[in-house]
């Protein structure tokens, strides 16, 4: 008997509604939005049209569908539409995480909610308006399907292929999904000889599914780059810091999983196949931490109470393991709950902030920006400038990989005031700087006679003399 979806849907609606409180502000949203609009208007662009440093060069196509979704949401409801898309994604993510946990302990929604809570809290950092959020949603769905597949459901394993094809067009994190599918299939094939032929077919199908994108093999390369060599100079790609709030939550999940595994009943090779690859990936970069919490939620719901009860009894505390008997479920009730959740999300999105929060960006510089190539902008402002100042192509922006290695190296030489900074300025033909006043290049340019064209507490626009 399947578990009731009322609690997962209710949790999804609550957290989805809460996600609408935050105004649009993500530094990468803007170039995703511009790219999506470009695709809707002119079809898929395979070369760059936003940055003067890489004009005409090939760009990554690994999240074109995610960009289009954001652009469609914007076209449908302006910033309210973007927030509605975010609310829907968060609601789906929470519903899937709680649902997967509840599937392990049906009839015990509190246990499922507690097991899912770290994943919900950790994924909070990914509530920006980017395709990455949809990547988490599809990862949560994959975990549910793979767990069902490990228990013998062939349709669940077959369903991973279309999910992977969709994911590969939405966001580059699909490589993690592919890897996980292959590991889970291999584990089941090892313990079940009769499954080996099916596993081989499913593995080939999964591999092919990831190639059904305009990027082709390129979708593997970009994902591999992110997972195995994260660019550490970008904050979210930094090493997970256990002395931060998200790091503490991650540490809690890791401790709970380790404790449950050591004090559990053992014989959980299938869990190992699911958890070990994900814990490694999650340890590689701060933005990957939610993956482990999402994957761990069903395991903690399934095994955590028994391990905790055993430990409590050891300490002389009377403890009973909550049973796992399924609660009664009904399609009618679930559909009604889904409709109610949709209503809650719609109301929340309508009441959400109607304007983006641009306090982080140099709005005061827009009117004074030079037209055409020649502006060197702060990395974090590139996407915002693409959207807000289309007549002034950027030097660099959050798409990062098209700028590696030359563009990024030159950017760092100038902004970090390396010994060749003047030579790079000349070689690139930079005629204006839009930086933070505390950047070394901004300080030095001011001292050496560059003209301050516009300035504010957090930005300065300088023109070359």
């Amino acid at each position, binding site marked *: 008997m399947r578990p009731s979806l009322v609690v997962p849907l209710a949790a999804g609606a609550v957290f989805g509604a809460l996600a609408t409180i935050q105004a649009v502000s993500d530094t990468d949203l803007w170039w995703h939005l511009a790219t999506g609009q470009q695709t809707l208007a002119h079809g898929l662009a395979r070369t760059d049209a936003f940055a003067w440093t890489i004009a005409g060069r090939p760009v990554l196509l690994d999240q074109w569908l995610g960009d289009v979704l954001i652009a469609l949401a914007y076209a449908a409801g302006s910033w309210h539409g973007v927030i509605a898309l975010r609310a829907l994604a968060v609601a789906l993510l929470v519903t899937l995480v709680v649902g997967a946990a509840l599937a392990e302990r049906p009839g015990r929604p509190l246990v499922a909610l507690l097991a899912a809570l770290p994943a919900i809290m950790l994924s909070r950092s990914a509530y920006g308006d980017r395709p990455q959020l949809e990547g988490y949603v599809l990862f949560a769905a994959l975990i549910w399907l793979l767990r069902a597949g490990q228990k013998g459901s062939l349709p669940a394993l077959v369903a991973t292929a279309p999910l992977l094809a969709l994911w590969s067009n939405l966001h580059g994190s699909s490589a993690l999904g592919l890897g996980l599918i292959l590991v889970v299939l291999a584990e089941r094939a090892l313990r079940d000889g009769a499954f080996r032929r099916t596993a081989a077919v499913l593995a080939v199908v999964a591999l092919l599914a990831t190639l059904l994108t305009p990027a082709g093999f390129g979708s593997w390369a970009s994902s591999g780059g992110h997972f*195995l*060599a*994260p660019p*550490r100079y970008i904050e979210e790609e930094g*090493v*997970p*810091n*256990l*002395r931060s709030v998200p*790091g503490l939550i991650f*540490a809690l999940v*890791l*401790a709970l*999983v*380790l*404790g449950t*595994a*050591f*004090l*559990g*009943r*053992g*014989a*959980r*090779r299938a*869990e*190992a196949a699911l*958890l*070990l690859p994900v*814990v*490694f990936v999650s*340890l*590689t970069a701060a933005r990957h931490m939610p993956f482990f919490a999402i994957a761990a939620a069903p395991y903690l719901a399934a095994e955590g109470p028994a391990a905790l009860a*055993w*430990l409590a009894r*050891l*300490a002389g505390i009377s403890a009973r393991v909550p049973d796992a008997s399924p609660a009664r479920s009904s399609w009618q009730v679930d559909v009604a709950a889904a409709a109610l959740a949709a209503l809650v999300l719609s109301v929340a999105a309508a009441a959400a902030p109607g304007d983006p929060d641009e306090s982080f960006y140099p709005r005061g510089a827009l009117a004074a920006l030079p037209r055409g190539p020649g502006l060197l902008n702060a990395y974090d402002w590139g996407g915002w400038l693409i959207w807000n100042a289309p007549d002034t192509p950027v030097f660099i922006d959050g798409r990062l990989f098209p700028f590696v290695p030359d563009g990024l190296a030159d950017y760092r030489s100038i902004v*970090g*005031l*390396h*010994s060749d*900074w003047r030579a790079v300025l000349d070689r690139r033909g930079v005629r204006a700087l839009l930086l933070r*006043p*505390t950047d*070394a290049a901004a*300080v*030095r340019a001011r*001292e*050496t006679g560059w003209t301050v064209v516009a300035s504010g507490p957090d930005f300065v626009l300088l023109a070359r003399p």
Partner: protein
Amino acid sequence: MRTITAAFFASLAAAAAASAPASDPDLFWHLASGAWMLDHGRLLDQDVFSFTRTGATYQTGQWLGEVVLAFVYRQASWLGVDVLRAVLVGAAAFFVARATARVQPHIGWAAVPILATILVSRTIWGDRPQLFTLALVPAVFDLLLAVRLERRPRLLWILPPLFVLWGNLHGAFAIGLVLVTVFAIEAVLVRESALRRPLVLALAASVVASALNPAGVRALAAASAYASTSGAYIVEEGPLDVLTGPGVVFAAMLLVALGIALTLGREAIARRIGAPVLWPGLVIAFALLGLAIQRQVTFACVVMTPFLAAGIPAVLGRRPLAPVALPRAIVVAACALFALAVATVAAVAAPRAPDLAAYPADALDALATAHGNLLNEYDWGGYLIFASPSHPVFIDGRGATLFVPGVLDDFEEAVRLRPAYHDVLAKHGIALVLLRPDRPLTVALREDGWRALAERSGRWVLLARP
């Protein structure tokens, strides 16, 4: 056989450690501090090396370690420092291997995790008082395992005097207290009546003993404060990157430990390794510590080593091997042979001079004839204290204990060329800078006409105010 196994791995590690030259950036100010204490016959508790914090009171919590280092250096120069390092690294490997042999007598199964741990420990083979902690953590771990698995509570009497020593040698004695705490909690939880009271008493006595140092109980508070700092400005105190060499090894060990636990479960762990509640306590506490502060990752590997050595064959369905007892004469002979081998390696291969490639050694002549306050690179401060005592430094590796926040903030403001850099230079009367050439400040000062008194392309440059 257990002792021979331990001596074998100890000799391997010691030989490797003896062959490396001294080069740690903090070694030099530790040596200078120890030498000052030997010369003056009292503790160094006021800054005498920098011009930015002259006279400020501070304690590094490792006075005895510094005195030992300086004494060894005075007696045997750099070779003495190399040998001290080899002895302490060898001791660490010895106790890791002996602890492992308590649960896995088969040297083949034990070898991989032991070697992995030795490999990871290379990150803290720098010649500093932390080498004493490197040796003492495995020593205490081995002792506690003997107490727990072989029910030998009498061994616990060693802990209080050990913690008196440790509390004066190096500030990270708190890691040892964490170890004792985990064992005591486990004994209380599983109601191990023969061990519960002795372990709790040993913990209390160890806490008291560790306070018998010049800082008293404040040394414990300092350890807690250290654990809660962000590690934002000192790389080795920052979070662990699992995509680096030591990080990959640690991550592999952690994943294998989790895999073993998922596969075996508590009952099989109890049968094959023993103390099923102890291992999660150790692995969780030390893995999180290692992930949070990368310099502590070695200790996470230390506590995981026996578990992996015994757990991997259990997962693969191999039968446990009974320990082999050898005559004492054979054990002594084998250990003597290993010691001789290490001594030979030390005599032949140990460098007689430090590796100064990372330091501006060639700038010293020019610096000796230059006058004025010097703004130096953070990592070079200790070396300058040791090699150019006539020029007090701006900042050095005593960072958190002496220079945070004021001087470090000024340093960052200046070298990163932030808007108030001129004010910092004026405030401290800077007339000389000795920095890396790619620092924004170096570039700006060169453009402003500061003279290069000496430089090595791509490494360092010494500039003087025009």
